[in-house]
């Protein structure tokens, strides 16, 4: 069965969306490896300790980062939402459900 140009165009768009989603997921998945872990008490022992790192001076801030959580988790949530919204927009556009035209 021969696909129409329109169908091909939509397929390419869908592939692009999927590729973007995959890249985004990979990027943010790497970043969230900073998860803190909480091993059960009494299941481990302490080994060697390093020296002190170089110091960094304190900087006053009016914006406080999330307490006790990995900031990248917030980034990931934002990215997932943005990707989902993009997908919905493209789906609506594909099915001509949007009041404005964003593709031929």
């Amino acid at each position, binding site marked *: 069965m021969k696909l129409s140009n329109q169908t091909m165009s939509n397929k390419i768009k869908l592939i692009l969306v999927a590729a973007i989603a995959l890249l985004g997921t990979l990027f943010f998945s*790497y*970043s969230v*490896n*900073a*998860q*803190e*872990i*909480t*091993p059960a008490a*009494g*299941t*481990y*022992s*302490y*080994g*060697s*300790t*390093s*020296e*002190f*790192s*170089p*110091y*960094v*001076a*304190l*900087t*006053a*801030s*009016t*914006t*406080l*980062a*999330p*307490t*006790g959580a*990995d*900031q*990248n988790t917030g980034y990931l949530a934002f990215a997932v939402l943005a990707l989902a919204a993009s997908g919905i927009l493209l789906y609506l556009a594909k099915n001509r459900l949007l009041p404005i035209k964003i593709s031929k």
Partner: protein
Amino acid sequence: MRRLSIFGLCLVLGLLCVVIVSPKAHAATIFTVDDAGDDSAVDPSVGCATAGGGCTLRSAIEAEEAAVGINHAIRFNIPGPGVHTITLTSELPHITKRVTIDGTSQPGASCGTLVPDNLPGSSIPHTLLIEVNGTATGANTLTFESTASGISLKGLILNNPADGWNSLFIAGYDPGYSAQVNCNYFGTDSTGETAQTPVESNAIVGFLHGGSIQNNLISGYKSAGGQGVGIVINGDAFTIQNNLIGTTADGITALGNKSGIWLQSHNSSSSPAGTVNHNVISGNETIGIKNGEDTYSGNNSVIIGNYIGLNVEGTALGNGGDGIYSISASNFTIGGILDTDRNVISANGGNGIHVFSQGDDGSGCYSSTSGQIFGNYIGTNSSGEVSTGYGNQASGITFNEVDTNCSHGSIFSQTVGGDNTGEPNIIAGNTLDGVRVYQVPDSGTDVFGIAILANNIFSNGNLGINLAADSTGSGTADTDLGPNVINNFLMSYPATNANYYINHAVINSTAYTGNQLTVNYNFQANGVQESPYDLLASNLVGYRLDFYLNDNAQDGAYAGYNQGKTYLGSFIVNGSETNATHTFTSPVTLTGNQSISTTTTVLWQDLSSCNGVQQGSSPPYSYCGPQ
């Protein structure tokens, strides 16, 4: 009536027979010394009377030894005021029975309180009036034999020992042997202000498996050779408590021995510990406390609540060498979580605490494992503050291996500090490093597993923590960057380094609002420790990152580095953190004129699969390495 009288007579005779035939119940005998001479008893089996009619210390011991039974007592009532000096002309008989020798029974004598319950404070010297001069004995001044368990010695001044001998020797070889040695002056005159020990000698040497050496002044024993030790005890379950060791009787001025105490554990690592508690050990020429050495291990020793380098009033006095010098000692404890368990170890000429892997003769390597050092002030005044003259002149704590022949695991599994209330040490004001971990460069990973957690480390001259491999020979601390820069600061570790393979996180930025402090950091772990005793990657739990606040942008000798003065907290990560953040609630006011640094500590679990020997009977094993 006649019949009654005969009955009564028989009754009396019968009772007499019972008394005569029954085993004798011997009452303890008191022998009272009333003669400061040194004559022997005419007939010890009948009493202590000498030919002159008096009772001397010598004749009293002879009579006590000849008397039936034990628990006898030797007391004193020598006529005349003041101090009575008994100058021995030969060796006294060895004491083989449980006996109490009580010099405070001399009219006018009394025990003071040399170390007050609350330090810093004031000493109340003893008033002791019976002085025993041992110069001419050619032997130990007093000897307790192994059969004399339970013996008590109180209220004597024992000085001028014979050359090469000891003032008191305790031959308590047998399990359960105990002795009480309380309220005496060793090595001084009656004032406790002047040394009376002109020759090579020690104060108290022996073996104990219980009992206490308490409330004694032990000072002035000096030596050009291997003697001059205040107390040398091999044993277990004994206590050395409330003594002044190396000062005058008022606890203020140095009247040093060559060294203060030498602890030796009895035979095995399973023995209960000897405890050194609440003494003032200061003013000695070399070491305050030596814990173990060579084949005499210092296993299980407990050292708590002492001033080591301060006088009784809390003023810097120092010992000439290390405050505590530990060799071949495992499972030792220095400090505790209670204020009363805290050692203040300051103003000493060497390190505050020196854990060493090599014997004094330089010929052997001895392993030290599972030491706990917590709750101490090291290098500060008695309030935990940095003050001029209180820092130890080397490092606060040094773990030190200097011999390339020493094997893997010379010093390992030691903990400095901890998370629980009272466990952090204050390590500050020392001339070199706060904590120095040194391993002589060679092919082994000999010094590792030194966990340094949640302490307050600041104002030390060099680095807060120095993993050093850039000096050789004597174990003196390094004062230059040397390979330390390469190995540690830049996080590239060769196999030769102490605390092998541990790098720290990199702090990218910080920000605070109120007392909420957020740090942004990267942490890429280098890996796991490898051969010859593999700690496998599967044993790795994660990495604990400790964060610290400091008032200064630079603390110590090196630009760009400070020390962990105020502990903020910690968390555990998996070792591949990029651009990560964590927020702490600061225990102190954040001003913007402060700085942050961090350390990393490895966490292991279930070391049962390692190629070496595990410690403990079940997971989590705390150690993988050689026996």
